[in-house]
C-alpha cells in the first residue's frame, strides 16, 4: 500500500464521503422514527388485508419492529444507491477512470507496482464503505435513542451488523475494482459492476415480494445481509463467509490480471 496515494485519494474524495455519510446518517435516523410513529398503523393496515402480506417484507426489512426498520433502511434503494457511490462508482472508476483520463501512466511512472496501486485503492474503498455503513448505523441508533426505542435492540450487536454491511459492499467493491483493473475504459468497468449489483438486488427483492421466486434469493449477495436476524441474536456464518469469498475472488482476479495486462498508449 502507498500512503501518499491513499492520502491523495482521501483528499480527492472527502467531500463526497461527507455528503454520502450525511445522507446515510439522515436516512438511518429516519427509520426508527417511521417505526416508532407509524409502525402500529402499518401493522393494522397489513393485518386488515388491504395490502397483500408479501409486501410486508421488503428484502428482510419491515416497519413492525426496530430491528426490521433498521433492516429496511439497509436494503432500501436509497441506502443501496448511497452506499454504491463508493462500492460501485468509486471502485469501478478507480483504475479504469485513471486509465481513460491518461493519468494512470503518470502514476505508474512512479515507483508504485500495479499490485500496490490496487491494494491502496482497495483500502481506500473499504475505508469509504466503512464510514458509509457506520453512518447509517449511527443515524439509526441516534433516531432510536431520540424516540425512546433504543432499548428494543441489543446495541452491542451493532458492530456485527456494521461488519456484515461492510462485507456486502466490500464484495461488490472488489468486483468493481477487478473490473476496473481489467478494462481501459470506465464504461465497461462501470457496466459490469452496476449490472452485477442490480441483478443481485433484483433477485433478492423479487424473491422477497413474490414467494414463487424465493428460490432466486440465495443467488443474491443482498440475501446474506441479515440486519434483523443479527440484531435479534441469530448469526449465520455462511452469509459472511460467502461475501468474504466473493471479495477475495475479486481481489485475486485483480491481483493476477492487472500486473499481466499490457497498458498501451491511451488513444
Amino acid at each position, binding site marked *: 500500500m502507498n500512503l501518499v496515494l491513499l492520502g*491523495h485519494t482521501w483528499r480527492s474524495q472527502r467531500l463526497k464521503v461527507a455528503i454520502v455519510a450525511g445522507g446515510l446518517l439522515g436516512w438511518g435516523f429516519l427509520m426508527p422514527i417511521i417505526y416508532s410513529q407509524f409502525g402500529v398503523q402499518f401493522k393494522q393496515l397489513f393485518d386488515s388485508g388491504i395490502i397483500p402480506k408479501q409486501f410486508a417484507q421488503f428484502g428482510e426489512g419491515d416497519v413492525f419492529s426496530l430491528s426490521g426498520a433498521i433492516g429496511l433502511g439497509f436494503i432500501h434503494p436509497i441506502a443501496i444507491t448511497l452506499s454504491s457511490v463508493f462500492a460501485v462508482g468509486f471502485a469501478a472508476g478507480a483504475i479504469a477512470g485513471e486509465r481513460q*483520463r491518461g493519468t494512470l501512466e503518470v502514476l505508474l511512472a512512479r515507483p508504485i507496482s500495479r499490485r500496490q496501486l490496487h491494494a491502496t485503492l482497495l483500502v481506500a474503498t473499504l475505508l469509504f464503505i466503512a464510514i458509509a455503513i457506520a453512518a447509517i448505523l449511527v443515524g439509526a441508533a441516534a433516531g432510536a435513542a431520540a424516540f425512546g426505542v433504543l432499548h428494543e435492540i441489543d446495541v452491542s450487536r451493532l458492530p456485527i451488523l456494521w461488519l456484515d454491511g461492510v462485507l456486502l459492499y466490500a464484495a461488490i467493491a472488489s468486483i468493481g475494482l477487478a473490473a476496473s483493473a481489467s478494462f481501459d475504459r470506465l464504461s465497461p468497468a462501470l457496466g459490469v459492476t452496476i449490472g452485477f449489483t442490480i441483478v443481485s438486488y433484483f433477485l433478492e427483492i423479487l424473491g422477497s415480494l413474490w414467494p414463487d421466486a424465493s428460490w432466486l434469493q440465495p443467488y443474491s449477495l443482498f440475501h446474506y445481509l441479515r440486519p434483523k436476524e443479527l440484531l435479534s441474536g441469530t448469526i449465520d456464518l455462511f452469509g459472511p463467509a460467502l461475501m468474504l469469498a466473493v471479495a477475495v475472488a475479486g481481489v485475486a482476479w485483480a491481483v493476477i490480471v492487472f500486473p499481466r495486462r499490457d497498458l498501451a498508449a491511451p488513444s
Partner: protein
Amino acid sequence: MSNIVTDGLGKRYGRTVVALEDLTIDVRPGEIFGFLGPNGAGKSTTIRLLLGFLHPTAGQATVLGMDTERESVQIRSRVGYLPGGIALYDSLSGEDLLDYLADLYGRTAPSRGDLLDRFEFSERDLRRPVRDYSRGMRQKIGIVQALQHDPELAILDEPTEGLDPLMQRAFYGILEDLRARGRTIFISSHVLSEVERVCDRVAIIRQGRLATLQDVGALLARRKRNVEMRLAGPAPVLDGVPGVSGVSANDGLLTCQLEGDVRPFLRAIASAPITDLTIEPAHLEEAFLEFYADELGLTAGRDGASRAGQVAASSELPASADTQSATPVGAATASDADQEADR
C-alpha cells in the same frame, strides 16, 4: 555499462500485428539519445516496454542495469518520464500536482525551482488549477514533473510538443545542463531538427524496426549539399565531376547535389559565368531520406531531395502511410499495431 540496453526486443499483438520487432539498441551514460521515427513507428511502444507498461513478446531490455520485466518498480524510482500528450490531474493546482508527484517518489525535488524559473512559471501560475493551463503550460509542467527529482535517466516522449520557440530553447538549455551533469536522456521525437540540435546519437525506427543507430554527426555527414547557381551564360559541364549528382539546368538556373570533396566541383565551375551561387548543407531530414532512398525505392538524387524538401517544409518525419506505398511490407504496419494496442 549502458543505461538502456535492448536485445532483440519485440512486441506483437496477436499473431499478425507487429508493433516492434527485434530492436537492439544501447544508450550510454551521459548522452542525449534521440529515438526518431514517424508517428506510429513504435517509439511509444518501446518506451512503454522500457517502463514495464507493456510486456515484451520477444527479447529483453535492461534500464540502469535492471530487467524491465522483473525490476520495473526499481527502474521507475530512478527514472523521470514524460508521457507523450501528458494527462494531468486537472483539479489540482500546479504546485499541489508537483508536490503529489514528487511525494510518490519519496524524494525531494531539488531541481524544481530551477526548472520553473527556466520555463518562466510564476508563483501565480503554480497556484492556478491545472485545468486552466494552456497546452504549452501543461507540457512545461509535464517536463518539470519528469525532471524535478533529478533522475539519473530521463525518458521524454515528444518533449517539445506544444512549446513555443522560446520555451523550446529553454528546454534545450535544460538538456545541455543535464548532459553536463552526467545525466542520460532518451528523447523520442518525430521533429528532426530537434534531434539534430540536441542529440549525440540517434536511432531511427520505422514500421516497428530499427533502421539505423548512428552518431548524429555521422548521419549528417551522409548528407549532400544542395547547390543552386544562377548563370549569365552557358552552364558548366558537370557530367562526370566526382560527387556531383542530380544536375538540372533551366532558364539560367542550375541545381545539383554535391557530396564529398568540393574541390573537383569548384574547378569545374571556375570559368562559368556565375551571377549567384548558393551551397546549402542538407538538414537531417535529407540525410534521413537519403538513408532510406534505396529502401523507399527513390532515386537518390532528385526524388530524395524532392521528398526531403517536402519533409523539410514541415520539419517532421513523414507518417508511415506516406512511405508505406513505396515500401514492400510483409508484416502488419506499426499504425495497425498501435490501433490494435489501443484496443
